[in-house]
């Protein structure tokens, strides 16, 4: 990846004036992806699912996009990009364009793990050339922090609230990487905006694959998660350092972990600064933190074992 000074000279695909909350990392992630993209070589067309990022960056009569962009609905970013990519193939076939165009679909966890999963699965199976980026903010944040299947265990959301009898979400988070990996696509990666160089490398790699690729990116949400706006990147880093959000790739079925913390932090470090986990630190709820730590450790060990096995498809 080029030096940041070089990247900073590029014309940005996403510009200021969008209405995301202060400190929101949706735009940080997209800016990093577009900075990494080799836009001297190819152009990019984006399809967005309904969500915070979409409503903030395409608010009639304003657009924050300097590149072609479409929003269709909540659950169909993948099928929308399928149609666009099919039309591109046709244009290519008939010589209507000599451009090299790459396609990106963006959605959050609601539009990916849940309501958009079927469309995503279909689009991947059909083999369209597109990078699907899930900005995982762990809940339906655009409607006000309702739980999703990406909400971590124990998190209090407006539909899995902490109360006198229940203590936040009782189910663990869906492992979407494993779900999608089953499509035997060439490239999947998990990334974090805190580790920008890693994220950029992954985006660049993914965009060069002639087929479907997927990136799962942690997207700390100041309002839904409950932390000050200046802490977004720090929270993302803590997710990485606790191995709650491991940075890894699955390249033709082979797991490659990109970062192994020398000092793996306890999950409390990630949980503590966030209001959605505050109840876990109340007396009597120690077992919940223990259970969460257990889930995180198990997944991390499983990832390490998979990497060590070297087995791909």
């Amino acid at each position: 990846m080029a030096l940041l000074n070089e990247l900073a000279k590029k014309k940005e695909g996403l510009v200021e004036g969008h209405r995301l909350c202060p400190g929101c990392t949706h735009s940080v992630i997209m800016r990093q992806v577009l900075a990494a993209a080799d836009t001297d070589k190819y152009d990019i067309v984006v399809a967005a699912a309904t969500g915070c990022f979409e409503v903030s960056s395409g608010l009639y009569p304003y657009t924050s996009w300097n590149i072609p962009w479409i929003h269709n609905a909540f659950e169909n970013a993948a099928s929308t990009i399928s149609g666009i990519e099919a039309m591109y193939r046709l244009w290519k076939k008939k010589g209507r364009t000599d451009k090299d165009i790459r396609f990106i679909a963006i959605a959050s966890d609601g539009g990916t793990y849940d309501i958009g999963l079927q469309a995503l699965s279909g689009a991947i199976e059909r083999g369209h050339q597109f990078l699907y980026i899930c900005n995982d903010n762990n809940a339906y944040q655009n409607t006000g922090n309702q739980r999703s299947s990406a909400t971590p265990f124990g998190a209090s959301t407006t539909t899995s609230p902490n109360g006198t009898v229940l203590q936040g979400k009782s189910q663990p988070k869906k492992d979407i990487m494993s779900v999608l990996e089953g499509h035997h696509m060439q490239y999947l990666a998990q990334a974090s905006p805190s580790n920008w160089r890693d994220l950029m490398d992954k985006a660049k790699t993914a965009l060069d694959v002639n087929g479907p690729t997927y990136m799962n990116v942690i997207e700390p949400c100041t309002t839904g998660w409950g932390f000050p706006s200046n802490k977004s990147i720090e929270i993302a880093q803590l997710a990485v350092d606790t191995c709650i959000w491991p940075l890894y790739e699955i390249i033709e079925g082979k797991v490659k972990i990109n970062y192994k913390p020398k000092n793996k932090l306890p999950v409390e470090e990630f949980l503590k600064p966030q209001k959605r986990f505050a109840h876990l630190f109340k007396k009597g709820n120690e077992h919940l933190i223990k259970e969460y730590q257990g889930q995180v450790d198990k997944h991390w060990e499983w990832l390490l074992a998979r990497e060590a096995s070297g087995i791909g498809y």
Partner: protein
Amino acid sequence: MSEKLLNWDEILIGGAIKDPGNSKSYETGSWRVERPVWNPESCIQCMFCWVYCPDSSILVDENGKMAGIDYDHCKGCGICVEQCPTKPKSLAMLLEAEAKGKSEEEIRKEAFSK
């Protein structure tokens, strides 16, 4: 910041927007309670503030170097200050109220004296 409200027969069909990046004309800087203040003297040009800024509000010169802050759009989230790696930091937050009516130099002094 006021947008021209067009009649129904004056707009593009299908809700299309033909003016890429026109949100630049919408100034989110008015949301700000605190502002980041930059000290170029201690800045090492690592550009972390640029890569982490959610609002593309780190001004960049033709050499790709940090050249200041776009206060028309900066929402004052404070990520740049938090991620600034120099010691002491080359960016500091200051309440907008404290910056009001002051010169750039006074503001810098105020921000970095804390």
